[in-house]
């Protein structure tokens, strides 16, 4: 081999939206918001923890947080969190630029992949959808997809959803529960499957996703769940959603600084509860309030890609969002928005990219979009893999051997490497005649058929009957 001196190689595309100076300025803006304006905490334990740390409470539940305290929390919050699958395999090491993908949770509606009809989410849909997630190679973790609307007491629907996820896939789970009791039950169910509390702490397979809509007003249920998870030593995602122009400034930098400030409060409280508690943040999630539509506008180019950079500024794992669309059906808009967002989140190094398969106003789930995204993610992953340049890949000897008149079709170099290339399955790259012969189907139709194929073929690894029984008991106890 030839020795090359001072050789530099790019194996992945390089991408930055914010400079180091800009990130630092946003960080200082967040510290200033907390020190100057302060936040309201609607939970006594959270207030007590703040008092114990020397923070003065005023107006009953409002605290101004000194910057030094935040800096302390950031210095001890873990920078490396590994999420495991149901069998304790360490499948999602959240660090720097590792990117993992998965669906969203709790949609009110679903798009039926066979009829195209929009109907209420059901437990049956969750079970089937999770089986699809289990089968898809590029879906790394689970969320509940939709709400089990047929459960009479909606306060306990989250237990049914948790059980459905645990039973139909081995992949890691991001669970959402409205209240603390549901969170405790979700953790208990995860412990049953993991084989005990210590086992789950060592190889965490479930993450509690906490979403706060006002960064300066932290509600009791969110704080209680955060502190419970911290006490257990289990990971939480503490994510703000600022609606620019409504719950925060309409300008991107201000909305981001505000959202980031709220997340830093979560990082601090978790550390006050238990030093070293694992917390995942978004870096300051914000979208623009739809001034025309009185709701979310979905997708904000100015902020895309910037948030994970903020999380990485702290070396904390970054929670991201992609593979979703504002479109009401799986159409060209859906494809474009899903592709853009998946690529940008990957480029920016978001460690957990969720909401894949969301349509409409993040309120309607589509399995067709999910399987399309699975293929788009493959594309993204191949793209992120970069270009390998070395003697073997330059193949100069092969080029000389084949010469101007030969071909490479059956050369052993071709045989060695052609499988490393990507050949799409769902995206059509074939001949017109073949497309017609196969029924002239659109991508949406092929995706719908793929969902049915998976449902017909794929059976997830079952849980032991005894474990299932104990999960049922938790659900029954909650239902009362």
């Amino acid at each position: 081999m030839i020795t090359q001196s001072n050789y530099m190689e790019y194996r992945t595309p390089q991408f930055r939206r914010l400079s180091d100076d800009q990130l630092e300025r946003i960080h200082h803006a967040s510290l200033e918001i907390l020190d100057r304006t302060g936040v309201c905490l609607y939970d006594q334990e959270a207030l007590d923890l703040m008092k114990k740390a020397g923070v003065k409470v005023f107006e009953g539940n409002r605290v101004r947080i000194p910057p030094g305290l935040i800096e302390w929390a950031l210095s001890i919050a873990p920078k490396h969190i590994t999420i495991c699958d149901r069998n304790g395999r360490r499948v999602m090491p959240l660090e720097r630029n590792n990117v993992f993908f998965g669906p969203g949770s709790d949609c009110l509606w679903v798009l039926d992949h066979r009829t195209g009809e929009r109907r209420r989410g059901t437990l049956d849909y969750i079970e089937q959808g999770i089986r699809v997630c289990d089968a898809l190679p590029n879906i790394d973790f689970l969320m509940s997809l939709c709400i089990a609307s047929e459960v009479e007491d909606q306060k306990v629907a989250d237990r049914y959803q948790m059980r459905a996820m645990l039973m139909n896939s081995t992949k890691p789970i991001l669970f959402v529960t409205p209240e603390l009791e549901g969170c405790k039950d979700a953790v208990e169910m995860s412990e049953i499957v993991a084989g005990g509390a210590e086992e789950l702490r060592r190889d965490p397979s479930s993450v509690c996703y906490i979403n706060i809509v006002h960064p300066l007003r932290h509600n009791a249920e969110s704080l209680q769940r955060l502190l419970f998870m911290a006490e257990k030593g289990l990971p939480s995602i503490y994510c703000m959603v600022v609606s620019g122009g409504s719950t925060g400034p309409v300008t991107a930098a201000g909305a981001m600084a505000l959202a980031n400030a709220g997340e830093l409060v979560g990082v601090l409280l978790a550390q006050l509860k238990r030093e070293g508690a694992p917390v995942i943040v978004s870096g300051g999630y914000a979208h623009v309030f739809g001034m025309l539509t009185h709701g979310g506008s979905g997708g904000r180019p100015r902020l895309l890609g910037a948030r994970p950079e903020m999380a990485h500024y702290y070396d904390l794992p970054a929670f991201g969002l992609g593979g979703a669309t504002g479109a009401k059906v799986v159409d060209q808009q859906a494809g474009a928005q899903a592709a853009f967002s998946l690529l940008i989140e990957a480029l920016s190094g978001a460690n957990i990219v969720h909401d894949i398969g969301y349509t409409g106003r993040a309120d309607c789930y589509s399995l067709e979009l999910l399987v399309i995204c699975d293929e788009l993610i493959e594309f993204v992953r191949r793209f992120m893999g970069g270009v390998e340049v070395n003697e073997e890949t330059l193949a100069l000897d092969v080029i000389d051997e084949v010469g101007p008149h030969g071909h490479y079709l059956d050369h052993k170099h071709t045989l060695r490497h052609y499988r490393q290339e990507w050949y799409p399955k769902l995206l059509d790259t074939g001949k017109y005649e073949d497309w017609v012969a196969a029924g002239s189907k659109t991508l949406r139709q092929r995706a719908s058929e793929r969902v049915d194929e998976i449902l017909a073929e794929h059976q997830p690894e079952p849980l032991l009957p005894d474990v299932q029984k104990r999960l049922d008991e938790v659900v029954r106890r909650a239902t009362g």
Partner: protein
Amino acid sequence: MTDIRQVIASKLYQGEKEDVAQLVQQALDQGMGPEEILSDTLMPGMDQVGQDFKAGELFVPEVLMAARAMKAGVSVLRPLLTGSDAAYVGTCIIGTAEGDLHDIGKNLVGMMLEGASFEVVDLGTDVGPGVFVEAVRERHERHPKIVGMSALLTTTMVNMKATIDALEEAGLRDTVKVMVGGAPVTEAFAQQIGADGYASDAASAVEIARSLIA
């Protein structure tokens, strides 16, 4: 013990040419007839390769490896088959149309045809009508013949008609079947210029070639 026919078929499918040649010899040593090995083992094995290629399960390099393995197996049998070229089901004289240097498709078709036990005479690229006519005349006394032409350009595909006309003039048109292919070529165009067959890809080219000499 596994039937040697199955082992040969699976080695053929995997493109292991040395193994196939060796196993064919072994089958002969065990007393199997050469015709039987060809028709019951190698040909069905290659048909499976063609089918799986059409279904998108096999990739081009794998098909070509299988075709090479087929060739290796047949070369063991050839001296034993009655008549010098009885191991061939037919002869294909192929080349790209005059003025056309795009030969990947033609090469693929050639290798697939060899894998299907055709004798392939590859005239190369930019083949004028006269060269085709001469090649057909030389093999006048041989078994069923096919002339195969391909073109990638709309400007060269018209030259395929010139070859058909030249075969007509030379009084050889009735001695051969003509099949055409290539990206701009369609079934309708093939009929229009008086060709006997059209194939849209290398796998279907084998099917068409077989049906033309059946």
